[in-house]
């Protein structure tokens, strides 16, 4: 049996339309991973092979959804923060006891925050160099790899600043420990540590991604592969930076 039946009867049933009621020819609207679909028309290629923009767009969308999930993780933590802050119990004399004592914020955290914000700037510089057409041309003509050179510089700087941030967080935990504020000390210190540590774990993953991106900058010959890795790493880095600002403000003003 042929895969498609084309009997005359179908012609008589005009209510079988192609679903667009004559508005547009069915395939002129591109779906899936095309870029701007200009001159060199990637769309004529099989889908999944439509060039660098498709890979980049996919990686960005994937990151977007994954970070959406991550955001829910932190929303849950922050909700529990507020619930715990407000809860207490009644003692034998019917007094409402709330054990929450705000945790003092080590002042080094302000410095760390500034460093992290700065690292986002250098990261963005690295991301932008990946898309400079002049430099891509140079590489195309074999004059050198200016993209890789510049991006390596900016990314290494980001890595350094990211490392400083993590060390700074470590110092903050140390300072708190010196004041005998530990994870288990108080409901509010639970959250101080939970929030800073889970964020630090995310930032550590970001550092791993930075190192991977730096390696790929050196090793990969395909420009699009380098672009995808640097671009997604930097977006991830930005989101972790913004997230930190929110979490930090919560710890400073929300306790």
């Amino acid at each position, binding site marked *: 049996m042929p895969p498609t039946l084309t009997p005359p009867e179908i012609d008589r049933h005009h209510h079988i339309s192609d679903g667009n009621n004559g508005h547009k020819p069915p395939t002129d609207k591109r779906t899936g991973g095309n870029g701007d679909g200009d001159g060199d028309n990637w769309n004529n290629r099989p889908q999944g092979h439509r060039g660098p923009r498709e890979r980049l767009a996919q990686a960005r969308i994937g990151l977007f959804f994954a970070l959406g999930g991550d955001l829910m993780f932190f929303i849950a933590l922050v909700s529990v923060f507020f619930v715990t802050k407000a809860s207490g119990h009644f003692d034998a004399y019917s007094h409402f006891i709330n054990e929450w004592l705000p945790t003092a914020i080590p002042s080094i955290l302000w410095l760390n925050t500034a460093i992290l914000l700065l690292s986002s700037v250098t990261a963005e510089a690295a991301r932008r160099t990946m898309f400079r057409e002049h430099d891509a041309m140079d590489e195309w003509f074999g004059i050198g790899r200016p993209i890789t050179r510049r991006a390596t510089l900016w990314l290494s700087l980001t890595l350094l600043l990211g490392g400083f941030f993590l060390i700074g967080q470590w110092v903050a935990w140390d300072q708190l420990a010196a004041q005998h504020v530990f994870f288990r000390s108080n409901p509010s210190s639970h959250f101080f540590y*939970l929030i800073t540590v889970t964020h630090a774990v995310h930032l550590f993953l970001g550092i791993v991604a930075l190192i991977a991106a730096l390696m790929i900058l050196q090793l990969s010959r395909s420009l699009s592969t380098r672009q995808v890795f640097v671009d997604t790493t930097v977006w991830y880095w930005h989101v972790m930076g913004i997230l930190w600002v929110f979490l930090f403000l919560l710890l400073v003003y929300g306790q």
Partner: protein
Amino acid sequence: MKPSTLRHPARSLLHAIFSTHHRNVGFGYLAISFIAVAIGTLLSLAMRLHLTWPAWHFPLHGLILPEEYLALVTMHGTLMLFFVLTVAPQSGFGNLILPSQIGSRRMSFPRLNALSMWLTALALAVLLAAFFVPGGAPMGGWTSLPPLSATPLAGPGEGLGMDLWLASIAIFCIASTISATNTLTTIVKLRCNGMRWERLPLTVWGWFTAALLSVIAFSVLLAAILLLFSDRHLHTGFFLPSNDLINGVLLQHRGDGSPLLWLHLFWFFGHPEVYIAILPGMGLTSMVLANFSRRRIPGYRLMILTTLLIGFLGILVWGHHMFVAGLNPFAGTAFSISTMAIAIPSFAKVVSWLTTVWGSHRTPSSAAATSRFPTPMLFALGFVSFFIAGGVSGPILAQPILDEYLHSTFFVVAHFHLIMSMAGLFGIFCAIYYWAPLLIHRTLSEPLGKLHFWGTLIGAYSTFLPMHFTGLAGEPRHYAQLNGLAGPGMTLLQSTMPLQRHITIGAIGLALAQLPFLLNLILTLLRPAQPFDNPWNATTLEWAPGSLNLHPSNQSPVVHRGPCQYTASGENFLTQWSELTPSQPKPE
């Protein structure tokens, strides 16, 4: 193919196992589900036998102690809900069929895809390890309610066993989030030309909505697990009231936590989770019913909308699991209203299914569909049947005043086994029978398939329908034994014993009814593969010639219309990929 792969089947097997191709990943997920469903079924039979004949000594084991009964409940629920009903429909078939259904040759991130399958396998291994550690498996139920789950003092399985449960589910959460990210990106970015959103088959809409829910819900569960872990090991008290006594021991911890907080976090995940389990099956049911009734789906866009709406409302109703847990009564009312609201899109779905099949007197339309009701169609109808039968008790349970009595009775067990477990199971079977030509290059035997269907249908109803009555008579959930109490309660529960025996025999029948299915699979796999060519005369893209093995050099398919375009007589149809348009007949 390299000659070496031909000579060493073992090597090519290894190759398949460690491949990142979405078909291999999909089969990996199905294998995980198969292991989980086999073990989960045995556990449930042990529970039934113990409930009915509590004095019976199990061979090799002996008497089942109450705490062992609770461990059985916990492991059964966890295996079935996480590793069967979430893994098979969403991740299994979402890998095996989804790419070809949208005209893509791959998933977006093949390596991450394989990684999430292996993480899921690891999660299963960690969970099963709980049987073999000192103290045995955890006993807090699939919802792991604190304070039972927050301290080893609560019972034998609540030590290492509970930690393994937490580790397993945490890994599962990460794996599911990765897998859902992959599914979403694939659907957003890899549709072939012409495959606009409103032309996506409803199965794809089911996978899409379920993946959205996964991304939202599993992260919250992960956060909850982290907090519970720290309650267990780091002396916090997020979920523990201060000065709580457990088994006569005063808990040492800081803070004024509350088990209610866990309930909020857990059910914020838990209710979306039950929709993750059922949405792919709902989509498949729509498509299969239309396929075999040779009808268009009435209100196609409305069906897309109801899928999304069910997903959206599903996020807002978690409180209906907490009516009697100390929830503020006003919140209870709000959750009650949002829960009832879900009944509206659900009802629209049911109406659409019924109008699709109603009065569709079709003659057999192809060689493979030798009767008006081929096996996939039967299982889709079974899905509808269970969805209705389980759905009617939903709005009853959604009323706080009625739930006060019914919560924690077997009435709830009846509700969710019909609407989720059995409907979900029938969705999986429907998928297997319907897509068998694509999965194993052979159609499964019809007579054995029908035997399987009727056996399973009758077995399922005789098991789960009577649970409504034992629940109404007051049979509590999570109780190891129904006799041995004193007073009128004893008399009441004792009076349910004949029904209990009926349920147990039904459950054994339900398990035995799977033998024809296994036999069917084995016999079919022993036959040589047969070439097939859209055996069900379907309209969706996975049946397009060569769609399974789109070679990179092939022209990728182009879609010209939505699915399910059948003529009024039902004899003829237009596939999504055929170029013919009615106004422009193909030139001679």
